[in-house]
């Protein structure tokens, strides 16, 4: 039997991936975080309009470790991180596999601006561990990693790159299409970009801005047009959180999507959560950027189709 050529070819990428995981752990340990593991199989994922959980018996595989990690925060765990597999039904493309690896970290008494700086430091550390310089090559682009990285609000990004303003895109229900076709390809081209301050309805678990409650303190990190991470200043008002979950639930019902029970234990303990910020970063995508991979298939041991 001949060797599986695809796997033979992938060895370099998988070794680099192992180094990336190692570098992430060292970074967080050095920063005073500790690593936690929370269950992959849970009874009640956060109801979000466009994220579908995979059923597992009468429970679900988690779509991210967010709710469990916030319960730890609420119990006084101030700096925690986790690297784990997550599952999202139906997500498959050159940047998606339905099972993937997320890095999440949470920090009490911080906000989304603090997380931006941690992103800058973490990704620079990962790049230097891999022996890459301050400059990344990704899909023909040369991207400088030296901080500060570009910061642009969603509203400004629409002004600069889209053919209509953000408010109009929301009213005409084409926000996502414009984001994908006109804005994302322009982000993180010469430096990584933080796209921040999303419309409130696009951030079910984020805190709203004091000075403008139509916006949420949420950002996404892009490198070379690829979305790498999503972060919030966390919403800690349990009553408001329940309202938002109910509204997401009714939206899901209107689309005949699977509905989940409300995560009651999370909602109860949220009352005790300190002000905090949290972020989810796609480790597969980080590997893609570091290795200038053509697709996500190049940085995983097996794609679903290969199983």
């Amino acid at each position, binding site marked *: 039997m001949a060797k599986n*050529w695809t796997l033979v070819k992938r060895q370099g990428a998988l070794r680099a991936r192992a180094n990336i995981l190692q570098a992430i752990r060292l970074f967080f340990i050095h920063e005073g975080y500790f690593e936690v593991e929370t269950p992959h199989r849970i009874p009640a994922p956060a109801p979000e309009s*466009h994220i579908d959980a995979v059923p597992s018996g009468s429970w679900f595989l988690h779509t991210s470790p967010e709710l469990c990690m916030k319960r730890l925060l609420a119990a006084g765990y101030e700096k925690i991180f986790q690297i784990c597999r997550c599952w999202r039904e139906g997500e498959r*493309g050159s940047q*998606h596999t339905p099972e993937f690896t997320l890095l999440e970290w949470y920090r009490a008494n911080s906000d989304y601006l603090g997380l931006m700086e941690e992103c800058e430091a973490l990704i620079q550390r990962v790049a230097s561990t891999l022996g890459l310089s301050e400059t990344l090559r990704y899909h023909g682009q040369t991207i400088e990693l030296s901080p500060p990285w570009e910061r642009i609000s969603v509203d400004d990004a629409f002004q600069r790159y889209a053919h209509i303003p953000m408010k109009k895109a929301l009213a005409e229900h084409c926000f996502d299409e414009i*984001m*994908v076709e006109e804005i994302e390809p322009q982000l993180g081209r010469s430096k990584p970009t933080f796209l921040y301050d999303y419309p409130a309805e*696009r951030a079910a678990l984020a805190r709203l801005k004091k000075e403008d409650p139509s916006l949420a303190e949420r950002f996404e990190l892009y490198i070379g047009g690829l*979305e790498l991470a999503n972060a919030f200043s966390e919403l800690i008002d349990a009553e408001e959180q329940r309202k938002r979950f109910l509204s997401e639930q009714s939206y899901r019902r209107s689309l005949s999507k699977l509905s989940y029970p409300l995560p009651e234990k999370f909602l109860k303990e949220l009352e005790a959560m300190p002000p905090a910020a949290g972020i989810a970063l796609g480790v597969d995508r980080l590997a893609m950027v570091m290795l200038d991979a053509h697709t996500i298939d190049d940085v995983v041991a097996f794609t679903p189709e290969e199983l």
Partner: protein
Amino acid sequence: MYTSADLKKGLKVVIDGDPYVVTVFDFSKPGKGQALYRTKLRNMITGIAIERTYRPGDTFEPALLEEREMQYLYKEEHIYHFMDNQTYEQITITEEALGEASHYLKENLNVKVLLFTDKAIGVDLPNFVNLRVIKTDIWVKGDTSGSDSKPATVETGYVLRIPPFVQEGELITLDTRTGEYSTRVKE
């Protein structure tokens, strides 16, 4: 009817009365946003490519194409000649209409010719075809310095990357869906 969940490379649908084939397909999802299906489609008659983004639930009329078993005979300028295996009737297809399929057309290869309202507009290839490597760099056994693949030209003129151990003159199997090397054929 197809829905956007059926979209994949190679799917054939009717848009504004013309048959189109999906040439590039990707799933996309801007953070916390809805799933979007981004496609490039090629008009199977004119060869002109268009880009479209679809949402979950969008529907498509399948392009119903007649398929006839034919043998590829030869190429003249940019025109490819085929013969119907049953009627011995000969037909031609332009290089534009063939698209990437022209990379794999070796004389005497049996293919399915596609007809839309009786006009030949393209071919459906076997998933795997064998082609001979006519040009590639020599590899010295035991050489560990080099990269994990090298460029090679096959007899149709198509250039692809192959493992270093494959030598000029050898027969290889290509996956026509991806255009990539699959295995070496032992003769």
